[in-house]
């Protein structure tokens, strides 16, 4: 182990084309800079009523200033917290900057949270104001308003349905801006003066981490934290004002804050908001962003859709697709990385670009992508290779809210699907004796808001942050993450058990949506599997298998058979890897329902909450470890999307799978 060795990034020169963030040390100051220097360039776009509307940096500055003046008149003071709830739309991004202009701290909240989940961040942050998108969010806040003593006013964007609400503390965005415009006419320098009071070490935002255990924690980030991270990421990738991105991931997620807000302000680039959350893929295609980020799940879904549509295509198209995709798999990644490739292969690839890759990228909206990021979870090697082989520069990065995102990034030309890259600029990484990854950088968070205990547990006095992830730095200097440190366990025979590692392998099959593996302090490894309704549903349709519900489809013997073959494939894979060969899957069952954040089984960022699932599905887990049991039953409460509760009762089959005998297993057990 390398307990004391510190890994750092190679130094890269400051970017001449970006503003000096030591002078313009807050986002409102950057807003003024951008309005003055690139005032006519587009800052934001939004599709509404079927038409893309664009705002220039100048217009955005005027709008934010008016909004700020209006909010000041409503009583916003320096140090206040302002909650933000809603889907990605320009006005909510402007709210972030508006708050920062006034020295208030924005608190973005996940917009699909139910009222109870919204209550915690709002009450904990003692937000005095909330700026929300529409009636849905207003209703949620009204239902918990009497338990939010600090909340004084709610500003809403879309007036539909809210117009006739009698509550005097509800204000329409337009009215606030109109009021602000009047004030600015009389006192034109009011907001400028407020902006001048701000400096780099003021708090800039408090995102709440979704947290797999316990209450969320408010991560207090200063302007310096966010701006250095945004700046370093931008110069690492050479982002410019001409880049464009699509903001469709939750505003409350730190990644979106850096990509769609921080870097947009630092580089002066243009950020577009989709028409609605359902139209993202269409909007993506119309927009053709150059800078794109998505969780692995999204790339998976897109690939699944492509594959399904190809299966429905005609013979010629299918043949062509297969031929050129095989070729791309062979040489595409090498061409992207600039590795030597024979002339013949290059010509064939160029032909493929015209016939298959180009049109495909165009349909997906990836034609202009220069840099694509994926983060949050491991991405399947096949999926990763697919996108890279057709010429999309997709990279993995490893980060956390506490780091203002960037811990490691894969540098161009050094991209491996099993690592998350080298340390990002100005980031230092250390691996603790326990195997846990620690990092330190100027972007490390100030503290957990009103939670010194948690701050002390996570951040050492000299600035190192515990990630809670187990990993190591490989020979190439790349960080490799194995699993959450606390999730890595051992089977009873002593074999290493890294559940995420096994789950990821299974999740790479299109038919499998989610997996939960068990094995810590057990005799063998077993797992729950969620089938992917879209992929399996399509397969069922083509094979004349009728089903009425997810539950029924999941229970179908043919589905079990398919999944069983996938599990056995994974077992063969695992058998080939010394460290994990012992944790092959012996038994599995298909869950009768999708794991869902509304039921507390996943976090809002779609990560499995193991302890919760272990408790809720206890009967099913014990059945997996009872050799006599061939079925498992569950009776549990489920939550519908509207917040109503229902009862789920189901009995599902357990299937035994073949495992591959491993030579080294005995040796591993003896260790």
């Amino acid at each position, binding site marked *: 182990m390398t307990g004391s060795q510190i890994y750092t990034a190679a130094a890269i020169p400051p970017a001449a084309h970006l503003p000096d963030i030591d002078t313009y040390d807050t986002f409102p100051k950057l807003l003024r800079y951008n309005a003055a220097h690139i005032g006519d360039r587009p800052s934001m776009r939004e599709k*509404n*009523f*079927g*038409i893309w509307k664009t705002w220039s940096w100048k217009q955005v500055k005027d709008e934010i200033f008016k909004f700020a003046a209006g909010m000041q008149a409503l009583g916003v003071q320096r140090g206040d917290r302002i909650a933000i709830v809603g889907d990605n739309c320009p006005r909510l991004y402007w709210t972030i900057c508006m708050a920062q202009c006034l020295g208030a701290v924005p608190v973005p909240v996940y917009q699909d949270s139910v009222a109870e989940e919204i209550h915690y961040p709002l009450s904990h942050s003692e937000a005095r104001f909330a700026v929300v998108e529409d*009636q849905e969010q*207003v*209703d949620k806040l*009204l*239902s918990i308003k009497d338990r939010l003593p600090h909340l004084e006013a709610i500003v809403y964007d879309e007036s*539909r*349905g809210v117009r*006739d*609400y*009698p509550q005097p503390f509800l204000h329409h965005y337009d009215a606030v801006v109109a009021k602000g415009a009047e004030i600015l006419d009389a006192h034109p320098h009011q907001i400028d003066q407020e902006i001048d009071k701000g400096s780099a070490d003021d708090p800039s935002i408090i995102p709440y981490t979704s947290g797999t255990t316990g209450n969320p924690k408010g991560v207090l980030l200063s302007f310096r934290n966010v701006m250095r991270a945004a700046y370093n990421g931008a110069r690492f990738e050479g982002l410019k004002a001409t880049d464009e991105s699509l903001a469709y991931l939750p505003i409350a997620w730190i990644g979106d804050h850096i990509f769609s807000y921080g870097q947009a302000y630092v580089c002066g680039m243009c950020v577009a908001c989709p*028409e*609605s959350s*359902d*139209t993202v893929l*269409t909007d993506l295609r119309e927009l053709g962003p150059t800078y794109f980020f998505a969780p692995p799940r999204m790339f998976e879904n897109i690939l699944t859709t492509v594959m399904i549509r190809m299966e429905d295509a005609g013979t010629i198209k299918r043949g062509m697709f297969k031929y050129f995709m095989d070729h791309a798999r062979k040489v595409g990644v090498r061409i992207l990385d600039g590795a030597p490739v024979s002339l013949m292969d290059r010509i064939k690839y160029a032909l493929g670009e015209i016939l298959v890759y180009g049109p495909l990228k165009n349909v997906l909206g990836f034609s202009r992508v220069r840099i694509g990021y994926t983060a949050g979870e491991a991405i399947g090697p096949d999926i990763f290779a697919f996108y890279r082989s057709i010429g999309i520069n997709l990279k993995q990065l490893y980060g956390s809210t506490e780091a203002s995102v960037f811990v490691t990034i894969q540098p161009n030309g050094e991209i491996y699907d099993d690592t998350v890259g080298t340390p990002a600029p100005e980031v230092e990484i250390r691996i603790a004796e326990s195997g846990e990854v620690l990092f330190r950088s100027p972007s490390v968070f100030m503290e957990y808001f009103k939670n010194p205990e948690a701050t002390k547990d996570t951040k050492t006095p000299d600035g190192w942050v515990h990630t809670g992830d187990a990993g190591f730095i490989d020979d190439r200097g790349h960080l490799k993450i194995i699993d959450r440190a606390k999730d890595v366990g051992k089977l009873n025979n002593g074999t290493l058990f890294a559940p995420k590692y096994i789950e990821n392998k299974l999740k790479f099959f299109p038919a499998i949506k989610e997996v939960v593996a068990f094995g810590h302090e057990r005799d063998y490894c077993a797992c729950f599997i969620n089938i992917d309704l879209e992929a399996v549903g399509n397969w069922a349709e083509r094979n004349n298998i009728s089903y009425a519900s997810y539950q029924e489809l999941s229970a179908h013997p043919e589905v079990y058979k398919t999944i069983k073959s996938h599990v056995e494939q994974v077992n063969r894979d695992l058998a080939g890897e010394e460290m994990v060969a012992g944790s092959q899957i012996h038994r599995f069952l298909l869950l009768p329902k999708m794991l869902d954040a509304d039921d507390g089984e996943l976090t809002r960022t779609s990560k499995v909450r193991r302890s919760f699932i272990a408790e809720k599905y206890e009967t099913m887990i014990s059945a997996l470890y009872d050799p006599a049991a061939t079925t498992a039953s569950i009776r549990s409460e489920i939550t*519908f*999307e*509207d917040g*109503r509760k229902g009862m789920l009762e189901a009995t599902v089959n357990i299937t035994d799978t073949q495992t591959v005998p491993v030579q080294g297993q005995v040796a591993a057990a003896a260790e």
Partner: protein
Amino acid sequence: MNTTAQMASGQDPTTGAQERKDRIGDVLLRVENITLRFGGVKAINGVSFDIRKGEVRSIIGPNGAGKSSMLNCINGFYQPQEGSIWYNGKTYSPMRPHDAATNGIARTFQNIALFKGMSTLDNIMTGRILKQKASLIEQAFYFGRGKSEEIEHREFVEDIIDFLEIQAIRKTPVGRLPYGLQKRVELGRALAAEPTLLLLDEPMAGMNLEEKEDMSRFIIDVNEHFGTTIALIEHDMGVVMDLSDRLVVLDYGSLLADGTPEEVRGNQAVIDAYLGVAHD
């Protein structure tokens, strides 16, 4: 009871109800002694009731009670043998389909009646047809009124698309859409005609809970936002009781009861005939 309507509007029920009462105006339509026969079968037998401006009026009753026939009489699809319909100051005896359409009566159908091969956008555009004044030539070559009208109507239709939150299916052929969305598109087409009176024939039949709640919210919004008067046929009692200002109950073609949800709920004849417990 935490009702759908309250959940959807998120308001205190008492103030909400008061506001809604204030919105309801004079009589908009009066059905007078309508009798409709198919051969020897009396589908509707001497029924009279009225619909006031701005209200949500539901027609309920068991299968075969004559509910859809009643809507068909109101929009002129069926022509009753006896009786008349008084609408907005004029008496029609009987109502003819073009009278209904030009006077702002729009409807949706129990069995969806959309153009399956056309996109959502085009389907809703067809609802604007009565508003188009441009000549065939102007429309064909896209100039003059043809152009300006198209833009104007498209704007109106986009408003509806936004209102019904169906942006994602704007360009999708409706035949490919799931049932719940097709119903929504049909509502969109009816709204495109800017109706004074909107007739909805089982807008929620075959929907799941979530779709029903969405549809309930749209109906409330249409009513409150545009002030459209709504006549509704629906079997889901929870929905009907929550949405309606007043109800008409039909049974075997005759009027059984007429009044507010509370009155109807308490009416013994209705309980016996329809809400009754004897069926299972």
